[in-house]
């Protein structure tokens, strides 16, 4: 329970919100054994638990597809909306106006976002809606049994479909050109990175896109397929090791930072992301550089992972609307219906 804050000698499995990890779990997954999506759900549970976020303070959104089923598998105590195929962004945009103190966690897939929902995907980026937008990207339609998605690489062979003749859509690049404010890519097989990026995304104020390559063990896991475990493991090029440091979290601050190789990025809430660069010094606030790295990785067949782009200068959507402090959905008739004298005033405004 929320009020049961930890006291001296409380078991260590209770976080600062007074909750155990179980309080963050959802229903058992009905996805396939070994599906990358399950691993992501687990990291969502862990990230929220470790960040002491109260489940009632977030909202879950999804569209339609395997990925969109996953909000059932985490945060049972959180309101959720499994909406329509490709339309999650609009539901979330409106849904987050009810109580602007809430943060959205949205899960979509490559079919949901890069095909049927491309339009809404792009527009939710430019509006900077206050939510984490996870794309569980496997290059294939799972629920309808193995058709190509728009993120599938050219030349990919699938059992029933033959060879994919089209060029793929790059989720991160689309997000960047649509002016998203937080763009990261990861690989479901790299659980630690997924978790750290999730934490950074949750701390970001605005839209945070996480394109997570999440292999489909049933329909798209051949060794040479770009959305497979074997390919991902062999071709992943993290641009940095990433650590999320919560504000005022002394335990985490004890961690050693290696000067010269690391870069700290401050988020709105005072937390910090530490990027330990592996190769070149990478500046995630440089949009041009982000585009160059993505282009380079495409040409070299690399799966570049890490925080690709971050802009902390823009206000999120609800902030732009200068809303009253009270959540809009707690307002009553006294706030919402103009007073009686206003009717004369408005009649006088007519001819």
């Amino acid at each position, binding site marked *: 329970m929320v009020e049961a804050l930890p006291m001296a000698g409380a078991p260590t499995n209770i976080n600062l919100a007074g909750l155990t990890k179980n309080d963050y779990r959802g229903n058992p997954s009905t996805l396939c054994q070994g599906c990358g999506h399950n691993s992501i759900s687990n990291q969502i549970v862990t990230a929220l638990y470790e960040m002491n976020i109260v489940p*009632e303070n977030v909202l879950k959104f999804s569209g339609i597809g395997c990925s969109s089923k996953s909000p059932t598998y985490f945060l049972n105590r959180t309101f959720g909306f499994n909406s329509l195929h490709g339309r999650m962004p609009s539901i979330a945009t409106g849904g987050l106006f*009810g109580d602007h103190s809430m943060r959205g966690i949205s899960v979509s897939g490559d079919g949901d976002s890069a095909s049927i929902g491309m339009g809404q995907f792009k527009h939710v980026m430019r509006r900077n809606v206050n939510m984490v937008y996870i794309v569980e990207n496997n290059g294939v339609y799972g629920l309808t049994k193995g058709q190509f998605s728009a993120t599938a690489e050219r030349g990919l062979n699938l059992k029933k479909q033959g060879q994919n003749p089209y060029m793929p859509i790059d989720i991160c690049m689309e997000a960047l050109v649509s002016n998203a404010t937080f763009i990261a890519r990861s690989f479901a097989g790299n659980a630690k990175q997924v978790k750290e990026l999730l934490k950074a995304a949750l701390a970001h104020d605005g839209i945070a896109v996480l394109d997570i390559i999440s292999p489909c063990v049933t329909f798209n896991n051949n060794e040479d397929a770009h959305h497979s475990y074997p390919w991902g493991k062999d071709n992943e090029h993290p641009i940095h090791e990433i650590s999320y440091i919560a504000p005022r979290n002394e335990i985490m601050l004890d961690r050693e930072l290696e000067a010269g190789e690391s870069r700290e990025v401050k988020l709105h809430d005072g937390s910090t992301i530490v990027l330990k660069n592996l190769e070149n010094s990478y500046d995630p606030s440089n949009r041009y550089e982000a585009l160059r790295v993505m282009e380079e990785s495409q040409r070299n067949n690399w799966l570049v992972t890490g925080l690709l782009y971050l802009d902390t200068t823009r206000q999120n959507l609800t902030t732009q609307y200068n809303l009253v402090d009270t959540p809009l959905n707690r*307002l009553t008739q006294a706030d919402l219906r103009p007073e009686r004298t206003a009717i004369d005033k408005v009649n006088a405004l*007519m001819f």
Partner: protein
Amino acid sequence: MNKIVNDFSITVGTKNGSGSSTANNTLLRSIFKMGIPISGKNLFPSNIQGLPTWYTIRVNKDGFIARRDHNDIVVALNPDSFARDLASVLPGGAFYYSDDIKQPITRTDVAIYPMPIRTIVRNDPNVPADFRDLVGNMVYVGVLAETIGIDLEKILVALSFHFKGKQKPIDMNFNAVKAGAEWAKANLEKKDPFRLEAMDKTDGLIMTDGNTAAAIGSIFGGVQFAGWYPITPASSLAEALIDYLPILRKREDEKNTYAIIQAEDELAALGMAVGAGWSGLRSMTSTSGPGLSLMTEFAGLAYYAEIPVVIWDVQRIGPSTGLPTRTSQGDLTFVYFIGHGDSHSIILLPGDVSECFDFGWQSFDLAERIQTPIFVLSDLDMGMNQWMSKPFEYPEKPMDRGKVLWEKDIEEIKGNWGRYLDKDGDGIPYRTIPGNKHPLSSYFTRGTGHDEHAKYTEESDKFLKNMDRLKRKNETAKQYVPAPISYPIEDATVGILAYGSTEAAVLEARYELDKDHGIKADFLRVRALPFTKEVDAFLAKYDQVFVVEMNRDGQMNQILKTEYPQYAVNFKSVAYGDGMPASAKWVREGILEKYEKATSNQRTAISKKTASKKAVGIAKKVAAKKVTKKVVAG
């Protein structure tokens, strides 16, 4: 010469984008201020500049203000439509035109008035060259003022309103009016019978359009969220929200209690509105037919997931893009059954601009009470044209926020609740709102099959139970939706059932049917679907019920036949849809074409319903035989 006072029509033909709307509105408003019942309708093309456009005014001392099919007075300013405009004047009518149009005058049966508009404007040193065309429009207002008798003071009132008190444009335009009037006084000899005389029949009335009224009504209903996408003829509804919300919901802390978002398309517009409705906001969208086609998937989701949201459909004529700037009642069956699978929509049908205001706030109460999308079907004529109206009335009923459980409520019932559980037997479940901090308050919303606790299920019995409850909810809705408006007359033998903006045309047609043909018709204007008990009672009374509507297929007639199969033979569809606002002429002629004299006579003699039914059958057979004979003889 005979005088015809306060009973004629005026049509002005101009080019789209030529700035004539100020002049036309000034005509309308100044005559309205003279106390004479009036309507003005803009018959415009889907175009920004160049195509012919008309503005048609009807003045009628008895209050019959439906559009007239014929023109008593025509003002022609557009060379492209000159011949057509001249041909459209009734014999004995008046034809005014700008004398720079050099085209043959082919009529000798109408009064012809050439007007030197360009010369008059050019002679006014206070009108800059690039304003001449705009201000020139005011010259014909002045000429008409002199010849038909519009009070110049009232014209000044109208101009002051239009230019929001800004003296410079008021003066410039009013000087053109006066110049026109002076020229007409000195140079024109009145050769037609049409005159205006001041009355007191518009005292206390206001003049506005349905979209503005709908927006203001929504604000009094506490609107908090609107997602919208521009589309004719609905755009001005959302734009009126944007205009009036800052005035009517201004706060000392200068913060906002609402958000309006222009979406990327209608899918997203309704998606956002549904999201906001789900999260507990009074939420709406406004669109027209093509937009509604896109909104269909979200309408289905909102129906099944039971999310309150208000959807205004300002109808234009389809199918497809259709005639984007012409009016219609063509979306009724589409909306009634909107979405795949079994569904029933709750639809409100405002009949005038004051009802647009009323349904603006009432629709939110209904949406939150019944937890479903509420569709409000207005149309282009009502939405975009200026109508005289009784003033807006402050909502006397407190807001109904429906069945909502907050933290303390959940605590009281110890978390023992189900999102889709029919606790009260009325089909309406309880809901919680995201942001509720009670650990037992949340549920998972989905468009997939769900049980009483919102859990995913594919089990047949649970699915059926839920679908039955949704149907029951629709029954419950009947006690909440607005009742029809009844216009009874004594000794009525037939009924007329209509809805929406056709009211004025129906009332006028009914008067004529009585006066000229001795047909006495009871009239019921339906204001909502599902039908209420008042509709049941009305239909039980008459063997012939003429169902009047502006579409091709008689959509209300189709729904009536489905909902009232026992009266199916009684319904006679009077449906017509050419994009023009309804006129009394087509209502009257449509009814006369379908009217069966035998049955109405029989009805008084035979009291038993079954017997009279038989009579209908016999009459029909006889009629059919006559037709056959005719064909054979021909």
